[in-house]
């Protein structure tokens, strides 16, 4: 990646660039997932091969942000024909360039073949994963080089900022946001316009704009991908917010763990400055706005807005009670708007196309009540036991079934769907019976989960719900800041109770105790982290009580996960005595003669599961 702004990428012919005369653009994904899969090596290989056939003046390689279909990475889309290549490696490139770029014959074996089908699908728009998505926040995904500001402007970037500065009073911008019904995408779902209005009207100068890019939920990476793929849209959204509330200073609080997003953001800020899109007197309209990046040190609680403000001020990242909202007293005690990355990128789209258009997408009615529905789209990171893991953007109101089965392609290895976890550690699990639930802020809360920032973890029959609850509680227990007792002690106790259940040491009445503890934490914790922390326990108790009962009463783990409650056996009828498991067993716990059924010595077995993994006959089972 070049460090200097707006130089042509090395090797591109500047003349050609000026004339825009490439016949073919190879849109290679440079999101974190694909980069770790070798995108930059593939780029070098492509350029080398293109040079070999003297095609460098005709065909260009463009490094884009995350394409979303991370499961199949590294991915590349060939335009103008929209041919989608996946799982590329360096060694595929010589053949690909010779066949497709030189001879014009798209290479079938590098295209995507949906599970359970035999023929490859050449075009991106025909692939199920992309077909049902609706891109607003990710409107530029895969279509621009995030490091070239002109490409953002070419897709009408910064026009919404120009529009508000020339045609709209700040109050009108606030009103437009209220009318759009946009609600905070970071998880809380607070109406964005209402927050802006409160901040605009709050006394105190200066006012601040903060972008929360401290995405901490396990398995969630929406914000990272947005910043990596389209950093200018974040800056533009923040600038519009600043104009609306009367601020001239913005901060982006980004996780330390996001180096690529950080680098692209820095470059975007530098380039925007050079073009005068940040800084003093933007578009000569007397509006100043500047953005500073602040790197977080990786505490989950700093995603909570008051914790974030404390950290931004250089204090320990601890939340405070919100009797007074940050909109009135936020950063340095001044009125502050804090919104999430995804919220900001929606702003330019709403300004340009109007709130009325925005309200046609989504659920409910927000005409008189900003809480009356969920408008627009939501980006989810779809992960776990699902074929097409990746980043998806869908209209609010789509069902979980459509997301998991139509877009996600269902559950791999012929397993059965069990539950989906939404909202990260503060959310809950949703069982199969609720798969047709329309996804929006209020519906998810009704069933005991929440939208959260958009993590969506799919689980199959091999996942133990008690173990899942334990995982999230352990995560939260180590991330609790410890300031208030219900959260700090509650999580520690919960973790120890759940450990007892998983180890078969729990007694009658344990589930009631868990429930009581959960409600105490919900009611008495200081911030949202503690207040929502019991959700994984409450939702699993609600929908999978039978699994808890099996652990507590029968000392069994039905999913075969909790080691203390299971024993490995070999089915003597299926075992053909190949000796593979005996050789691989790290404990030498498997005995038996060649061609004779084997047996596991349970006193030596450490339940690592290697025997089950290596068995070709499916003869190892758990009970």
């Amino acid at each position, binding site marked *: 990646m070049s460090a200097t702004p707006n130089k042509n990428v090395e090797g591109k012919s500047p003349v050609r660039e000026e*004339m*825009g005369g490439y016949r073919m653009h190879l849109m290679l994904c440079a999101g974190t997932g694909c980069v770790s899969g070798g995108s930059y090596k593939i780029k070098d290989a492509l350029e080398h091969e293109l040079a070999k056939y003297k095609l460098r003046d005709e065909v260009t390689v463009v490094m884009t942000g995350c394409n979303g279909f991370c499961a199949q990475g590294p991915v590349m889309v060939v335009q103008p024909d929209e041919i989608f290549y996946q799982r590329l490696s360096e060694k595929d490139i010589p053949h690909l360039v010779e066949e497709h770029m030189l001879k014009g014959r798209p290479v079938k074996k590098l295209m995507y073949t949906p599970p359970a089908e035999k023929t490859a699908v050449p075009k991106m728009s025909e692939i199920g994963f992309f077909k049902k998505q609706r891109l607003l926040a990710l409107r530029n995904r895969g*279509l621009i080089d995030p490091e070239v500001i002109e490409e953002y402007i*070419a897709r009408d970037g910064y026009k919404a900022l*120009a529009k508000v500065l020339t045609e709209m009073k700040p109050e009108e911008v606030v009103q437009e946001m209220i009318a759009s019904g946009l609600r905070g995408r970071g998880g809380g779902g607070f109406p964005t316009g209402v927050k802006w209005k409160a901040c605009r009207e709050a006394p105190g100068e200066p006012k601040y704009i903060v972008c929360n890019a401290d995405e901490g939920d396990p398995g969630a990476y929406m914000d990272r991908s947005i910043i990596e793929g389209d950093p200018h849209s974040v800056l533009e959204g923040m600038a519009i917010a600043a104009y609306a509330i009367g601020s001239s200073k913005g901060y982006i609080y980004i996780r330390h763990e996001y180096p690529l997003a950080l680098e692209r953001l820095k470059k975007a800020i530098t380039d925007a400055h050079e073009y*005068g899109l940040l800084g003093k007197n933007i578009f000569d309209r007397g509006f100043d706005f500047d953005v500073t990046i602040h790197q977080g040190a990786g505490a989950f609680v700093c995603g909570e807005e008051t914790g974030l403000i404390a950290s931004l001020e250089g204090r320990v990242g601890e939340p405070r009670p919100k009797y007074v909202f940050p909109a009135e007293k936020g950063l340095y005690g001044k009125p502050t708007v804090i919104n999430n990355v995804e919220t900001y990128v929606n702003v330019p789209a709403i300004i340009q196309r109007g709130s009325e258009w925005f309200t046609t997408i989504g659920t409910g009615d927000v005409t008189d009540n900003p809480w009356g529905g969920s408008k627009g789209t939501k980006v989810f990171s779809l992960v776990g036991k699902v074929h097409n893991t990746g980043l998806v953007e869908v209209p609010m109101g789509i069902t979980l079934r459509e997301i998991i089965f139509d877009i996600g392609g269902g559950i791999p290895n012929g397993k059965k769907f069990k539950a989906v976890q939404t909202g990260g550690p503060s959310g809950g699990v949703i069982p199969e019976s609720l798969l047709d639930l329309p996804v929006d802020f209020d519906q998810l809360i009704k069933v005991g989960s929440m939208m959260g920032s958009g993590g969506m973890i799919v689980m199959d029959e091999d996942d133990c719900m008690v173990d899942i609850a334990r995982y999230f509680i352990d995560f939260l227990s180590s991330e609790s800041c410890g300031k208030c007792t219900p959260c700090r002690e509650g999580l520690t106790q919960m973790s120890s109770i759940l450990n007892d259940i998983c180890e078969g040491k729990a007694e009658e009445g344990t589930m009631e105790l868990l429930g009581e503890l959960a409600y105490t934490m919900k009611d008495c914790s200081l911030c949202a982290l503690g207040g929502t922390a019991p959700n994984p326990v409450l939702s699993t108790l609600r929908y999978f009580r039978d699994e808890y009962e099996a652990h507590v009463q029968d000392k069994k783990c039905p999913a075969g996960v909790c080691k203390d409650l299971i024993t490995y056996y070999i089915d003597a009828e299926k075992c053909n005595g190949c000796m593979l498991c005996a050789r691989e067993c790290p404990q030498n716990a498997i005995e038996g003669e060649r061609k004779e059924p084997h047996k596991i010595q349970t006193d030596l077995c450490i339940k690592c599961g290697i025997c089950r993994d290596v068995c070709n006959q499916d003869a190892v089972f758990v009970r």
Partner: protein
Amino acid sequence: MPKLKIEDLDKIVEQQKKTTSLRDGAGRVKITVHMGTCGISAGARKIMAEVMRCVEESGASDIIVTTSGCAGLCSREPMITVEVIEQAPVKYVELDEKKVKKIFDEHVMKGNVVEDYALAIGSERTS
């Protein structure tokens, strides 16, 4: 870089038009150069270069140039197919650079099919 004025945004949009329309796959005309082994050995690369030169010279931003494999009529290569939006595609055969230039000026820019070089109008049935 100079500080941008609001009008400059549209200038950049205009400058980048070729890029955006190519990536959106939205062009007024699509020119396909047939580049099978037969096409290449008959000189399709030169034809491609000439097509690209013509596009650049015209300054048009709504023309998409793409390639495809052998069109099945190897003896009459090099070939191109010109497809104006919402019109039947036209295949041109036995081309050289001069013919390409003429096809470009007449058919692509003005919409008049150059019948002298055309093989046929329409595509083969594929189903």
